[in-house]
């Protein structure tokens, strides 16, 4: 594999795909954490009678 003159293109393609997929996974997880935290905060505020 590393003897191929084009292995750099193969490595770059796999690195690009891995980074993009990792980015999509992390963005989705970060969004979930943000929405869950916001929802928890609002429900706590509502539970305490709107005092903040």
């Amino acid at each position: 594999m590393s003897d191929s003159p084009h292995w750099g293109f193969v490595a770059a393609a796999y690195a690009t795909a891995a980074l993009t997929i990792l980015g999509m996974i992390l963005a989705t997880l970060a969004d979930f954490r943000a929405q869950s935290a916001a929802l928890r905060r609002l429900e706590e505020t509502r539970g305490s009678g709107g005092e903040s």
Partner: protein
Amino acid sequence: MWNLANPTVFIALTRRALPWLAVATAMLFAIGLWLSFAAPPDYQQGETVRIMYLHVPAAWMSTFIYGVMALAALGTLVWRHPMADAAQKAAAPLGAGFTFICLATGSLWGKPMWGTYWVWDARLTSVLVLFILYLGLIALWRTIEDAGRAARAAAILTLVGCVNLPIIKFSVDWWNTLHQPASVFRLGGPTIAPELLWPLLIMSLAFTLLFITLHVMAIRNEILRRRVARLTMMAAARDDRLAPGLAPAGMRP
């Protein structure tokens, strides 16, 4: 099936299904990647054929996701169901991501095989148009503040953009392009050797499962975002009732 259109039922189901989906996706990727590097090199393209195991599944996903969005757009326009809009909105960034992988890996495959990273031929240009459509739809949802109006506008734009799908599929038949014609889904069967075809099919399944997993997660996020927006508005209305003088003049009833 229709129960899934209930946001509370959907969230309860995702809690049970997501761990299984994530494990199945990771296992399929592990098997697919192992097979991709164990497969023999192509007799003409040599080792660069390994880019195919990323490029082709990403290309299939880019059009498949747009098809999913088009179905969801029909759900928004015909039944006006909020879950249809949530599904469509959640799919757009994923579609953009997979289309980016398709364009980037295609470009990295093109340089050693064609001698250039990019040509303005029909297949490449129509996929670039698809990528721009995804970005345009994401921008549209962010630009229009009224969620209902944004949903309808995005649904109409998605359905109009469907005209690009047959252009992408048949561009290699209708015009002279550098891009090779279909070699898997074609009349007369695949033209790829089984040693190369199997890793490709496993990787395609892994990409499909990855999309399903991320899409389910993103729909759940969208449902939570709408709950946050509703609760924020209710809290603002309650604050206004308790202390009307504190609200800005333009916001008082």
